């Protein structure tokens, strides 16, 4: 909180500390919200600038990461809104294969996450958003609803729908279906 206050007052060192703390997280969120590396960087940078300008408004009522996630979502929504309707339709239905790069990790988990991310990128933005907040950042349904600016019931319904959509996509992917056999209820 003290660092945020100093950063809001123009302390370059405090601003650098805040960016060191938040940049990776903002970039991570942005990268799950869009399949395009360039667009993810645009969202991340715009969100970071918004964070720096808005530090004076941060009251410490929530964690700074929660506050930054909120700004990232709003920034992403703003950037998506600016796209023309034709561009959006083209991207939602005719998306090129997203650029996914994963680090080598324990066998299986990286591949599962990589494949899931591919499917996630092909979903509608509002479904993608809610799944990212829930499963990548681990927010509760109440926090997710607050971040998406929707009522809790709407968030619940949207989450149920997005999980159902993702599950159908998983079931239609023969390789992924085999990997996550234990997840799928018979």
């Amino acid at each position, binding site marked *: 909180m003290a660092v945020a206050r100093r950063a809001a007052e123009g302390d*370059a060192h405090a601003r650098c500390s805040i960016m060191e703390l938040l940049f990776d997280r903002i970039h991570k969120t942005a990268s799950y919200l869009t399949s395009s590396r360039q667009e993810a960087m645009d969202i991340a940078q715009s969100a970071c600038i918004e964070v720096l300008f808005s530090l004076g408004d941060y009251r410490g009522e929530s964690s700074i990461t929660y506050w930054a996630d909120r700004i990232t979502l709003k920034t992403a929504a703003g950037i998506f809104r600016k796209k023309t309707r034709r561009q959006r339709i083209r991207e939602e239905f005719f998306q090129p294969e997203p650029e*996914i790069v994963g680090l080598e990790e324990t066998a299986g988990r990286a591949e599962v996450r990589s494949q*899931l991310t591919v499917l*996630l990128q092909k979903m509608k933005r509002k479904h993608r958003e809610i799944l990212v907040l829930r499963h990548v950042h681990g*927010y*509760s349904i109440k926090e997710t609803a607050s971040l998406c600016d929707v009522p809790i019931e709407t968030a619940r319904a949207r989450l149920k729908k997005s999980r159902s959509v993702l599950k159908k996509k998983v079931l239609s992917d023969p390789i992924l279906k085999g990997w996550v056999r234990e997840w799928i209820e018979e």
Partner: protein
Amino acid sequence: MDRRMRNDKNIGTDNFDAGLTDAFSDAPLCGALGSIDDLTRRRIINDLIEEVETFERSAIAEAAMKKRGGGVFAYAAAAGFVVLLAAGGFWMTWNGSGPLAKDPDTYFGEVVDCSASLFIDNDTAPLHAPIPVGKAVQTTDGTALLRLPTGIDLWMDEHTETAIATLTDDRVILSVDRGEAWFRIDPKREGPALSVVTPQGRIEVTGTIFVVNAQPGEVLVTLLRGSVKVVLSSGEKRLSDGHAMSLRKGASYALAQEEKRSMHHRLAALTWEVDTLADAIDAPPEKGEAPLLNVDPSISATQSTPVQAPEKSDPDTLLAEIQTQRGRGNWPKVESLYKKLIRIAPGSETAVVSRVSLGDVYLSKLHRYKDALQQFERYIRSGHTTLLPEAHYGRCAALKAMGDSLSEEKCLISFVRRFSSSLQAAKAEARLNALRGERLR
């Protein structure tokens, strides 16, 4: 199951939901689209902060202008002032004065190249950052080239700290506080006289290329071209080109051919030409030539380091003895045998590789972490690649043992990026996540 998910009612947290959370629970910080390298990341952050500051400054200036109600005349005056400033800047550049300080009292020169994170007064410094007088300039796991006005180039090796200690009309004093710094001074330069201070003495400089290597307890000055005067507590001494001097002992010696060759390689990388080393490149090693003066920084200040005649032991015999002593757990003896091996066959593959083994002995057996770090870094600098992942990982471990978590984190980031398929990659990533987790708390 995740606490949040247990508390959420009516979601139906079935196996699928739990599986999704599990799959993404340890997603790397880089996200879905892969990582960006550390230098790019830092540049992005610096650019973002600069953009915000520029906007704020212009907003303040605009608000002040409006408050004064200057109107058209004020804007014209400001525009005229800017034109004058630009013209003045253009004149100074045309005059060939080079990158002059923004404010001669506080800045002197700029950063013209850096391969990784560079810090000025503990803040990250981007490329072309001006160098403030009186503030420490530090490299971590990369090198940097500083260009100071009137013909001074200063190249900093990894983990090196320098500063522009003092700047007056007739003298500029640079300091090398640790690490290795290479200086190239234009013989035709005009401007304030130059001195370089180290923890053990001062060097008065004219047109020359020289190297200052400052390690705990020992400072070595090597002159490659021209002439310098070294001022010690015991008096002044002059150093000739092709010679090096230990400031602690005040004694100089002629560079061996091997040393000259090694320095030639570094100079070639910097594109600094030195005629005095040309003879070393063509001439074969001389028979019975004394080996390099051992500038191994792991030698403590209390030990003497005389130039010795070549040893009779051969590397294979020494290696066999090392294995025997390792089996007995006689680590001080193992240390001295490795040093002997490095001393008698300094350029050999066995000796170079031994630095990693010696670093490991310092780290895990003798608990001399600074010495371990130096051995790993010397291996890395040798250009050898066989044990590069081990050396880099050892470096990270040494920094961890020294409690330098910031440097350790930077080292781990570099390691995970370069050696993602190595044996140590998983451990390195786990440690990196742990460090970042501590920072976020």
